[in-house]
């Protein structure tokens, strides 16, 4: 028989963490016109069994967390990764003094999940 480990503290559960980067802080404000910064959110936290069922997980992650609870040495926990992302648009001057509006897909992490 094995005893299920105690549930981790809530702030250790897989979830998005917000991080705002100001272009002025990194010295790019003279060539980036807008926006003033961007969200460099990231996913961090664990996907333990049985919590994985609530963490926006797909089925194999739930099974993997179950197997980890039974044989932790053989089966690692599922990973906490971005599952929903948003694009951003940046308006800036390029090296040719052109004004450029550029659209970047999948830039901002909105949701995290176990996979």
């Amino acid at each position, binding site marked *: 028989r094995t005893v299920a480990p105690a549930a981790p503290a809530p702030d250790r559960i897989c979830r998005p963490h917000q991080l705002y980067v100001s272009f002025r802080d990194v010295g790019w404000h003279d060539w980036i016109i807008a926006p003033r910064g961007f969200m460099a959110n990231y996913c961090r936290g664990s996907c333990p069994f049985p919590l994985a069922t609530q963490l926006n997980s797909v089925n194999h992650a739930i099974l993997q967390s179950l197997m980890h609870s039974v044989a932790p040495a053989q089966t690692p926990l599922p990973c906490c990764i971005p599952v929903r992302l948003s694009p951003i648009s940046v308006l*800036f*001057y390029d090296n040719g003094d052109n004004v450029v*509006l550029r659209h970047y897909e999948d830039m901002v992490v909105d949701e995290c999940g176990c996979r």
Partner: protein
Amino acid sequence: QPGPLSPQAVALLRALGLSEPPAPRQPRPVPPLLWRLFRKSQEKLAAAKETQEPQGPEQQAQPCRVEELGVPGNIVRLVPDRGKLRNQGKLLSGSRAGGGADSPQARGPPRHRLNPSRPVTRPPRAPCLPFPPGGSVQFEEPALAPLCVEKPLFFNLSALAPQEQPTLVRLELACARGAPGPGWELSLSLAPGPQLWGWQAHWHHRQLLLTQPLLPGQDTIHLDLLDLGLVGPSALPRNLSLVLEILAGGGGDGNGTEAACTSLGRSLEASLLVVTLHPQQCRPLARRR
């Protein structure tokens, strides 16, 4: 941290499609069109976040499409004109009137000043008149439309990456109040790059692309160069050299026409709106299961 580029900064710039941080020499005012497009994109992103419900493909903003311009693309650039105005609105004899690019007028001798008091008439389109049998016809030197503005346009497109596919290349011209009267024309020719720029080379190597009337009050003119076949759907040239001419119409007195030319020449501004699609950064819209 400001200062020498950290590996992280280099990686982020590369993710943004840039090799190094640009260093604008004299930042220009932000063009209203691009600012409007940026604001629209921010509103769309905020609206998409607010709903947060899964949307059907119809409701989702196309990932790489510029709705306002109606073309696919994820990079919109406004390239300023770097050409210098050659004659500041001075009246000169016309060059091309009545003939195509290969007509003798287009390749004719350098321009000479036309007496503005002489009425402007258009030569017949066929330069050779039928001879009456047994008679003789006196040729009259054809009076050409006076050239009002001649402006070389030069666009530096070296900032575009080779993989970028142009979906819109639009020449945007802005001038004060358009033509002062009827009969004014605008013509656009392809000229060689600046390395061949010289008076004679200029005239002999240009290729007429289009001629269209310049209407009174028409202060903005948009010419789609993709439609003209000037540039193809594959990668753009690194430089684009054009020659813009405005030919004065009839019906005005010499001084009025000259003043109009001067004002047109001074107020004329050109820029190139280029929309491109970077295939590696734009994935097709994934259908939701």
